[in-house]
């Protein structure tokens, strides 16, 4: 018998019923709820007269519609507060643990679940947000689902799924100094496309991944959805176990020992076969910035904006032309030197402690350029407090950044935080889609160090300053 991949083991471990044609009913170990969509799912559950089957396997937090303003107690408008109230009411009614707006463990759902030890290796995790793939960094099978499926999970603790194919992306070499997992992910998407991972569960392997912190692995798995894949995975190793040990919801005592035994058997067997393999030279990646409206529209900081005329595929060409028009950029020009209005350091992609540390190292003792509005929105209350204990908040504030309250904030424009029409924002989030940060907003995706350096320069930089390397 040939070996199995990490994905195969995870899938097989959760099959409640095989429905044929590659479709299976799978057991859900963790359902992560947030404040956008949960309220309507609770409502549907009730309307259908159903019961939330296993409340102890559901965990909720408020992140999407909460304000990130200092002193906030909820959303910035009635409609936002209605979503939060609906989440609160559903959680109370069914006994689901909720990290409410003012709770010490509140934060972005994909930051909170790993840092509290709620998601663990070997688990099947779903969430009504596509960046659930983040949890795959721990060796969990995790993906985003829609509202109908939320109700399905609440009522049955299962999800109906189609077995994806398996892809392994092996990163050779190590990241150069100043190059971050964000750059690696963007460069990868740039090469294989925003649909390059579609239909696959993607496992990341190779030296660069082994050397990566858990925060970095989360950034990588987070961006799998921008590669078109629903599932990103990293085989659990000692770094994973070390990260989890002692976290509030991690197994303890005898459970910890048993869990460790089980987790050590999860990584892909040496003789396992993938449906598709990609080799990618991590050592060659340089700091990236996106120029268009798809994460695949990425280039190195020092490069020129591509010319749609050189693109062979007509619909791709049309999309590139539309993107340049929306972004107010001309083909063939260097992206560096483009004036910016805003900088956002935050989101479930890049708002963890190590992200903030790298950005703070760039800004310490310097000043944000006049006219640029720069924000740091920590991913969670725990991140925020840890950062404050290290004085990062002071470094940011003294440089002229705003230090705000945890939440999705400017990643999504659903909480009052928006980039004004026509304004240009360098953002550490994950989507540069048309209107993502607000109608008419122009988004350039980048790493925390690049975003911080752009804030100081007031424009897109051509190379990272020494402090970031």
């Amino acid at each position, binding site marked *: 018998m040939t070996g199995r991949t990490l994905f195969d083991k995870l899938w097989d471990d959760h099959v409640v*019923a095989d*429905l044929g*044609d590659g*479709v299976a*009913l799978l*057991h859900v170990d963790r359902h992560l709820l947030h404040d*956008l969509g949960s309220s309507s799912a609770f409502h549907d559950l009730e309307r*259908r007269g*159903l019961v939330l089957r*296993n409340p*102890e*396997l559901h965990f909720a937090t408020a992140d999407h*519609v909460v304000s990130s303003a200092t002193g906030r107690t909820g959303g910035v408008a009635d*409609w936002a507060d209605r*979503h939060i109230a609906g989440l609160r009411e559903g959680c109370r009614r069914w006994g689901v643990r909720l990290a409410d707006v003012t709770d010490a463990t509140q934060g972005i759902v994909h930051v909170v679940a790993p840092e509290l030890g709620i998601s663990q290796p*070997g*688990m099947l995790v779903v969430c009504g*947000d*596509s960046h659930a793939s983040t949890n795959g960094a721990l060796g969990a099978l995790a993906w985003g*689902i*829609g*509202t*109908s*499926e939320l109700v*399905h999970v609440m*009522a*049955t*603790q*299962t999800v*109906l799924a*189609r077995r994806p194919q398996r892809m392994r992306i092996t990163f050779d070499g190590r990241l150069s100094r100043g190059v971050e997992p964000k750059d690696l992910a963007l460069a990868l998407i740039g090469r294989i496309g*925003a*649909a390059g991972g*579609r*239909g696959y569960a993607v496992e990341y392997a190779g030296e660069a991944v082994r050397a990566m912190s858990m925060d970095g692995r989360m950034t990588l798995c987070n961006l799998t959805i921008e590669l*078109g894949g*629903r599932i990103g995975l990293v085989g659990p190793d000692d770094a994973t176990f070390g990260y989890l040990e002692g976290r509030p*919801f991690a*197994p*303890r005592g005898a*459970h*910890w020992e*048993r*869990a460790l035994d089980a987790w050590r058997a999860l990584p892909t067997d040496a003789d396992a076969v993938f449906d598709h393999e990609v080799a990618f030279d991590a050592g060659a990646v340089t700091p990236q910035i996106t120029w268009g409206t*798809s994460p695949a529209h990425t280039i190195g900081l020092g490069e020129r904006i591509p010319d749609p005329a050189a693109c062979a*595929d*007509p*619909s*791709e060409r*049309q*999309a590139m032309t539309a993107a340049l028009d929306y972004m107010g950029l001309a083909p063939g020009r260097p992206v560096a030197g483009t004036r910016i209005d805003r900088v956002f350091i935050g989101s479930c992609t890049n708002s963890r402690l190590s992200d903030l540390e790298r950005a703070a190292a760039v800004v310490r003792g310097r000043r944000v350029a006049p006219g640029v509005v720069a924000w740091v929105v920590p991913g969670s209350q725990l991140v925020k407090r840890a950062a404050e204990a290290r004085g990062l908040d002071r470094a940011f504030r003294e440089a002229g950044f705003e230090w705000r309250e945890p939440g999705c904030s400017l990643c999504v*424009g*659903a909480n009052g935080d928006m980039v004004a029409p026509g304004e240009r924002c360098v953002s550490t989030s994950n*989507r540069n*889609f*048309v*209107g*993502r940060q607000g*109608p*008419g907003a122009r988004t350039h995706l980048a790493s925390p160090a690049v975003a911080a350096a752009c804030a100081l320069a007031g424009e897109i930089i051509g190379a990272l300053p020494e402090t970031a390397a």
Partner: protein
Amino acid sequence: MSIEKLVVVEGVAAPLALANVDTDMIIRIERLAKLPRADLGRYAFEPLRYRADGSEDPAFVLNRQPFRDARILVAGANFGCGSSREMAVWAIAGLGIRVIVAPSFGEIFFANCFQNGVLPVVLPAPTVARIASRLEAEPAAAHMTVDLERCEICTDWGETLAFAVESLRRRMLLEGADELELTLAREPEIAAFQARDRERRPWVYGNG
């Protein structure tokens, strides 16, 4: 509880041959957060459909005749990529569209379609591109019949295109059956799985 059945869809087909139309483009987060499901259709494709002053952009396909009344959308590659928001499907369905033909789809969007009685059809990219340009060039012939029973699309110009749909999903659309109803009937299997699993992986169920 059930979804709206889909057997045969006949009507105007509109070409939207743009690659990577994402869920933010299909429905803005603020709209879906603020409005009830029934009102989302008005805001489908908002950044493409309306100009900055709120007026309709006459150049956008769904603002033109006969495409305003489209029931079928012929779209570009990776259609519906991005977020898990099911409201993207609700918004498109709110326009009266029941079938979307594209070379490929965002995966979660694809799954969400079936939950809401919308049929996503995958055809080869050159075929989709050819149909889209013909619709654009000959709006008078922009009428199609999509037959899920036979898994065939018939165009006004006499072409028949076969497509494939996974059998379970096809059956559910044809019958208007609901995934949840089917799973609820499997409660004994779920209980048995959990009983076994609690022995095998007790830590998953709590730190007792």
